[in-house]
């Protein structure tokens, strides 16, 4: 049980990454693959945040006096994830626009039917 208590966040984050990767590999519909990419993105962000967590930690903001710097969580992964979320949204939009273009060209989103994209 203590194993679960300690590693449940890692398990959840890695689980999301693996689910996303499985969707990317096994599904044929392009929209489903983009959804898989988004799930993977969330998993990676969650893993980075989890690595920076400290037991009973507070946010790294000195908004009032008397906060102990030793209790604050690691600010570096939070700073990285902050920008990664917005960039993830933009990359998702770019992928969706490419999917729209592919659909208009081939009339389908099934990757098996698009001739040059056969796996």
């Amino acid at each position, binding site marked *: 049980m203590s194993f679960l208590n*300690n590693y449940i966040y890692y398990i959840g984050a890695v689980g999301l990454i693996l689910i996303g990767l499985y969707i990317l590999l096994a599904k044929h519909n392009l929209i489903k693959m983009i959804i898989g990419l988004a799930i993977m993105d969330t998993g990676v962000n969650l893993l980075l945040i*989890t690595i920076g967590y400290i037991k009973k930690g507070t946010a790294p903001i000195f908004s009032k006096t008397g906060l102990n710097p030793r209790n604050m969580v690691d600010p570096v992964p*939070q700073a990285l994830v*902050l920008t990664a979320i917005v960039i993830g949204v*933009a990359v998702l939009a770019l992928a969706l626009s490419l999917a729209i273009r592919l659909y208009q060209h081939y009339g389908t989103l099934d990757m098996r039917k698009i001739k040059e994209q056969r796996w």
Partner: protein
Amino acid sequence: MRKIVSIILLSVIAIGIVLTLMKIPFAVPKTKVGAYYVDKGVGQTGAVNIVTSVVLNYRGFDTLGEVTVLFIAALGLGAVLATVKKKTKREIMPSSLVLSTGCKFLFPFILLFGTYIFIHGHLTPGGGFQGGAIIASGFLLIYLSCPKKRINEARFKVTESIAGLTFVITGILGLAFGGYFLFNFLPKGVANTLFSAGIIPIIYIAIGFKVGAELAGIIDGLMRISE
């Protein structure tokens, strides 16, 4: 066949990740650089929000690169969607009076909230990226409730460019005054007040405008092809 190969590949990757994570203990301080930022951040940058001081002061150049990635993604979306030939006609049902009036009533408050988030980026949780995303969500609300309304694309592009230029020019001014790019040349002020932390609020306001205009432009580009 494909599913079996995928599952084998995934189990190999899973074993690799698990073996790596076994070496990383959970919920204890790990990096020395994080502790350094927490200890020295307020004194060195003047911003009480350490995440902000990491994003814009210690790793400011990195953030400039990330803003550039966002810009290129928005540009790529525009370039891909510009070549869409046949515009599909779609029946647009006008939304009800209650919905459209409610959304128009909420819109300025959403803009105000987004502005609050990016102006107070160095004091409270939040900042330019989050505030920009909130502003873009306000535009998304208007697009969903009033399908006839469109943003002025040229003005958004100008806003975005001016905001990007402000970031770069602030960095170059730092080069001129302090000797290196993005040097915090303004007075740091009293910590935990609005006018503190030197160039950090200026850059975060620029990023807020840039991200808001960019994401609103992305929404506009995706909505435009189905009118």
